[in-house]
């Protein structure tokens, strides 16, 4: 052992001076723990399938063959395109090298092997999308729907990875913190009032509401994300994005027709403030509509059945592919 290592360890021992805990606080800590434990023990357990939305959207690459492709791509980038890949890191949406940047990000994510790292990378990518929008604004460039949707997608990807870690609440808190920071940064801008700004604010508000509510109930977020994935699988990503953008442009009421048309649902009354809007708009355990009606198209069962916290809302079918699921839970409200 080197002498310097011993010296450092001795210095670290300075931190061994730990104060005695206040016995009252120890008692209080235990009391709170026991209270929370009993409260949770009394709650009904809800099982949510932990299937990744992004797996379903074929964005995440997990197969062995895809890993090989990833490695081959990296090698080719290192050997032939290393400089291009580096140069691409400063590119912005619309630039020639921007697809290289996102490819490198996908590779980075694809190589991550544990959920913690995946989450860190995804959150970092979400921040990059925000920075890109900021730079575009600073340069008086047009910020289009594609940029906003890319930002939202990266954020929701971070959420997805976050809830698959061992510490979903901690990760959601981190996402919340980043979102708050981004909101602060946006509020510093001088462009309030332009249409883009309004849309982006609505997007941020929706994401913030979703994250806040998810911290209270991460399982509900899992269902929400899965629901969106199934919707995208059924009707295509473009349709999903249209509904989103209409919602952000005009508010939730104007999206009802869009969603209702697809679902043949009839009246739906949920404001955009509802953090779990998707489940609610598309037939959720809280509505009093006939849940059997949801499956008339024979396509939406999987997601709808993934969550039900209502006491009388049983009949949740096991369904992995989103097709031909059983009837959604009929809420007790």
């Amino acid at each position, binding site marked *: 052992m080197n002498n310097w290592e011993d010296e450092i360890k001795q210095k670290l021992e300075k931190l061994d001076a730990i104060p005695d805990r206040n016995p009252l606080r120890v008692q209080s800590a*235990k009391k709170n723990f026991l209270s929370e434990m009993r409260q949770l023990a009394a709650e009904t357990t809800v099982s949510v399938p932990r299937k990744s939305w992004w797996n379903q959207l074929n964005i995440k690459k997990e197969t062995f063959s895809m890993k090989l492709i990833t490695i081959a791509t990296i090698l080719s980038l290192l050997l032939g395109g290393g400089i291009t890949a580096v140069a691409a890191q400063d590119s912005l949406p619309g630039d020639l090298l921007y697809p290289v940047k996102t490819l490198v990000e996908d590779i980075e994510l694809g190589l991550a092997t544990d959920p913690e790292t995946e989450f860190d990378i995804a959150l970092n990518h979400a921040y990059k999308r925000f920075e890109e929008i900021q730079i575009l604004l600073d340069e008086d460039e047009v910020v289009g729907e594609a940029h906003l949707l890319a930002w939202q997608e990266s954020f929701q990807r971070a959420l997805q990875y976050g809830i698959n870690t*061992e510490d979903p609440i901690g990760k959601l808190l981190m996402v919340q913190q980043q979102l708050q920071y981004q909101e602060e940064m946006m509020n510093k801008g001088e462009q309030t009032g332009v249409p883009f700004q309004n849309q982006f604010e609505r997007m941020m508000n929706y994401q913030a509401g979703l994250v806040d509510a998810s911290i209270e109930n991460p399982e509900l977020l899992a269902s929400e994300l899965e629901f969106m994935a199934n919707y995208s699988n059924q009707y295509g990503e473009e349709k999903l994005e249209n509904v989103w953008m209409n919602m952000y442009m005009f508010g939730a009421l104007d999206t009802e027709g869009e969603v209702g048309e697809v679902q043949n649902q009839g009246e739906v009354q949920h404001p955009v403030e509802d953090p779990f809007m998707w489940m609610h708009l598309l037939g959720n355990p809280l509505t009093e509509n006939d849940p059997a009606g949801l499956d008339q198209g024979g396509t939406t069962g999987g997601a709808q059945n993934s969550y039900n916290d209502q006491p009388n809302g049983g009949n949740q079918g096991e369904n992995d592919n989103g097709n031909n699921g059983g009837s959604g839970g009929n809420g007790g409200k």
Partner: protein
Amino acid sequence: MSIIEEEEGLISRLQAFDMSALEAVFDQYNEAIFRYGYRLLGSQDKAEECVAETFSRFLHSLKNGKGPKKYVRPYLYRMAHNWITDQYRRAIPEDEGLPEHYASQNDHPEEIVLDNIESQEIRKVLRELPDNQRQAVVLKFLEGLENQEIAIAMNKPVGAVKALQHRGLQTIRKKLEVKL
């Protein structure tokens, strides 16, 4: 029998949300998590908060069908670590300095002051370390965990943990040379 082996019997009871097992885990580890929080954050209030948050997340994880798969202690340290890292990102916590009882036990005020300054410096250096180096160093040299346990807590091979510890000590050395 090592600590890790002792804990193996607990897991199935914890997964079944057995309240006596949960209480036993709290009793066994809350003090250690307090120490861990205090060493890194330098505040009794924050250390108590660390205990509360760690065990609350532990309960919620188990309730949601997650939680430790084999070993309890590394899992708790990982949760505490995540929370502390989050605190670092939010704001730099205030260091309370050495605890009061420490002064009363020591007759040399100049030593107290020097120790106080040094411990604050070291805490600051630890805060500046890369996340994984800090975790590997603190769990080993301050918390006294075995490398095997640290490897589980960090979800890394033992060899990688050792390398991180070595690099962590080197980084601390460099940073202290600059500061002191």
